[in-house]
């Protein structure tokens, strides 16, 4: 076998595999369309997308896409994603194959280069469909659909090729070196972000996105922003230069990857195992997976009091929560980003920033902090065998998430109590007093919904389909309705106390406020206790023998 033949050995078979899989996907799609619900969903989605993509702006009634999306905003978005991808590439690798590909392709007479090429082709197909969707929904004002789609397509190619190239560069580094350098890279990125925000803070009165430092930071992304925001420019000199630069960058990256001489199997196998573990974790109900940790030392928490059996479950969930604490970074990043953007876009003071952050934590927190029944899909049969009353068990399961969420809320937004105007301080204090109960209420409703309609976050093969997404929306709608009803009951009791107190001889506004608040809080507590009890009953009803994959 010649050297050239060896370099691309197995490529024909890999292309044939791609063709077979495309055929299989089409077959599965056609089979799905025979089910009325899937057909209706597909038609709805197709109609919606076509409408958004094709209707002229004056018929649609509003500007399409993001009308205010300027070069700076787009540049920031385009810069952040490659930075995060580069960090992932350094940390754990991005050349990832599915377990069945590892089984069939890695021991087969297939060259590393053929594997890389197939991997790139696979991602190319995905990025093209992604580019079309992006062009439909996130189109800069005044830009043509095809121009934007082409721009996004080229950018997504960059997003695919650049991390692979970084990954290949890091292959020779031992695992510990990779992890250390990834930590340095992350620290540098955070420092840059903090520096940019700090600089903008110092230059008070100027929007963050208008600072010179940021304009310089996004300069490397300029060819991509030019190509995406081409608008009326195709044919003009800046557009041509931008396009030439983008193509040159992509060609250089592709050449770098295809000239790789080593073997990618081991690194790809390792990265694939990490991804498979993450997918499994998501299927088991966790939002994100924390890195594997072999030695964790002693117990992080002392065993909690028995509390009729609830204590031990609360302890177990809190321990899991502490050991996977890094996975809550996204929630905290979202919270901080909201605070920063509220400050810079609305020139808001610290009190408003704190409240905005609290809002994010109250609304999104129960979705992210999920060390309860939602992350215990595989433990449900075992939990059923325990000699703990279901209501008590439910309370133990939910208390951990509620407590953890409250601590996060206090740490990240509790300071607003000290910086808010004095006239609002008492009301805000009331909010923080009622918050643990409200967290528990939200969590119990979320858990109740999940126990009533058990569904793993992924579909049959780990990727959610349209029916799964629709079902998720229905569940979320039901959750909002129940929480709204619970709050209405609470408000009703508080209002009844407020208006009823004068007849009992309590006239002072402050006294009426405090008593009404306490009555409302008691009502909220009672509703929450009922909800927790219901979660216990629902836990008894869930059919553990069913596969929950939907």
């Amino acid at each position, binding site marked *: *076998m010649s050297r050239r033949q*060896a370099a691309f*050995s*197995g490529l*024909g*078979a890999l292309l*044939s*595999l791609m063709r*077979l*899989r495309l055929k*299989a*996907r089409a*077959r*599965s799609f056609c089979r799905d369309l025979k089910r009325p619900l899937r057909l209706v969903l597909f038609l709805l989605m197709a109609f919606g997308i076509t409408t958004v993509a094709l209707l002229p702006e004056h018929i649609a009634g509003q500007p399409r896409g993001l009308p205010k999306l300027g070069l700076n905003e787009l540049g920031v978005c385009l810069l952040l994603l490659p930075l995060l991808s580069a960090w992932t590439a350094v940390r754990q690798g991005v050349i990832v194959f*599915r*377990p*069945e590909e*590892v*089984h*069939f*392709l*890695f*021991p*087969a*007479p*297939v*060259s590393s280069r053929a594997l890389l090429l197939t991997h790139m082709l696979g991602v190319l197909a995905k990025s093209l469909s992604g580019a079309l969707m992006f062009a439909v929904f996130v189109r800069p004002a005044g830009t043509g659909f095809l121009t934007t789609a082409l721009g996004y397509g080229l950018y997504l190619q960059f997003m695919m090729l650049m991390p692979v190239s970084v990954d290949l560069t890091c292959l020779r580094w*031992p*695992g*510990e070196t990779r992890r250390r350098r990834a930590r340095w890279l992350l620290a540098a990125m955070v420092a840059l972000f903090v520096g940019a925000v700090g600089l903008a803070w110092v230059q008070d009165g100027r929007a963050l996105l208008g600072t010179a430092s940021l304009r310089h930071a996004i300069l490397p992304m300029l060819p991509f922003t030019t190509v995406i925001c081409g608008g009326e420019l195709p044919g003009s000199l800046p557009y041509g230069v931008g396009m030439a630069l983008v193509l040159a960058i992509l060609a250089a990256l592709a050449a770098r990857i295809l000239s790789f001489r080593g*073997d990618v*199997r*081991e690194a790809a*196998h390792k990265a694939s195992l990490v991804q498979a573990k993450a997918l499994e974790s998501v299927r088991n109900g966790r939002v994100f997976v924390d890195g594997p940790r072999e030695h964790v030392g002693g117990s992080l928490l002392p065993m909690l009091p028995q509390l009729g059996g609830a204590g031990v479950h609360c302890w177990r969930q809190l321990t899991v929560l502490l050991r996977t604490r890094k996975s809550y970074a996204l929630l905290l990043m979202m919270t901080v980003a909201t605070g920063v953007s509220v400050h810079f876009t609305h020139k808001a003071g610290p009190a408003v920033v704190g409240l905005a952050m609290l809002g994010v934590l109250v609304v999104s927190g129960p979705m992210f902090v999920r060390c309860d029944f939602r992350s215990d899909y595989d433990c449900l049969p075992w939990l059923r065998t325990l000699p703990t009353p279901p209501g008590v068990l439910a309370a133990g399961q939910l208390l951990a998430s509620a407590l953890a969420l409250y601590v996060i809320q206090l740490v990240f937004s509790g300071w607003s109590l000290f910086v808010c105007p004095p006239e609002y301080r008492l009301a805000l204090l009331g909010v923080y007093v009622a918050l643990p109960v409200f967290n528990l209420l939200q969590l119990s409703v979320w858990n109740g919904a999940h126990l009533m309609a058990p569904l793993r976050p992924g579909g*049959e*093969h780990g990727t959610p389909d349209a029916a799964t997404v629709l079902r998720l929306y229905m569940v979320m709608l039901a959750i909002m309705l129940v929480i709204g009803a619970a709050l209405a009951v609470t408000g009703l009791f508080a209002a009844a106390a407020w208006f009823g107190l004068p007849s009992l001889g309590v006239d002072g506004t402050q006294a009426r406020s405090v008593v009404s608040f306490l009555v409302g809080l008691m009502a909220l507590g009672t509703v929450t206790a009922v909800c927790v009890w219901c979660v216990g009953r629902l836990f008894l009803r869930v059919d553990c023998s069913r596969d929950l994959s939907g």
Partner: protein
Amino acid sequence: MIEVSGLTKSFDRLLAVDRVDLEVGRGEIVGLVGVNGAGKTTLLRMLCGILQPDAGSIVIDGHPLVADGIEARAALAFVPDTPMLFEQLTVLEHMLFVARLYGVRDAGPAIDALLQRFELTEKRRATASSLSRGMRQKLAISCAFLHEPAALLLDEPLSGLDPPGRRSMCDAVASRAAAGSAVLVSSHELEIIERLCHRFVILHQGRVRLAGTLAEVRGNLGSLEEVFLRATGAGDAGPASA
């Protein structure tokens, strides 16, 4: 045949496989046994080219795996403990793909024969996602047999199989060896391994603790299980309860 010499592999600070020497001749079935974490899977993954050894050499059917990877890989087949299949592809599509992958010419009759032998003929149009555990294992082994490999590597091939499935798997492995393949089987099922294999290698903490035929390794001891427990120190706590 499979020739392994001085094979070593470590992950960060953990030495998973330590200077292992091993040889499996044509038509021979060698059983690889060891406690969990002994290094069996790492060894097999190195033999099939998924992991790269830190030191040592692997020769498959006369081709060094590192220097002549494509030829060496063309001569081997690997079946992992859990059969990973392309869920949306049918049984027949799997076989056609593997035939293309290993360059099997005029694969039709061979595919038909294998499907018939492993009772998959009626399932040839069924997707992998619709197959039972046993059927999936049969499909994986059919794919492994299609190019008549000179070396066959099996990692825990009996896990999760019912008694008929185990019997069928053992028969298949024995027939492949009879056809001239060198077979290396890793398993915890000592009784079955004892019946199936010609020689045994007991791996412990990444090193070969004991190797040879059953008669050679057992000496005065009664069964492979006793030899295994003695060699790995796992039986020091006392005799197993009945």
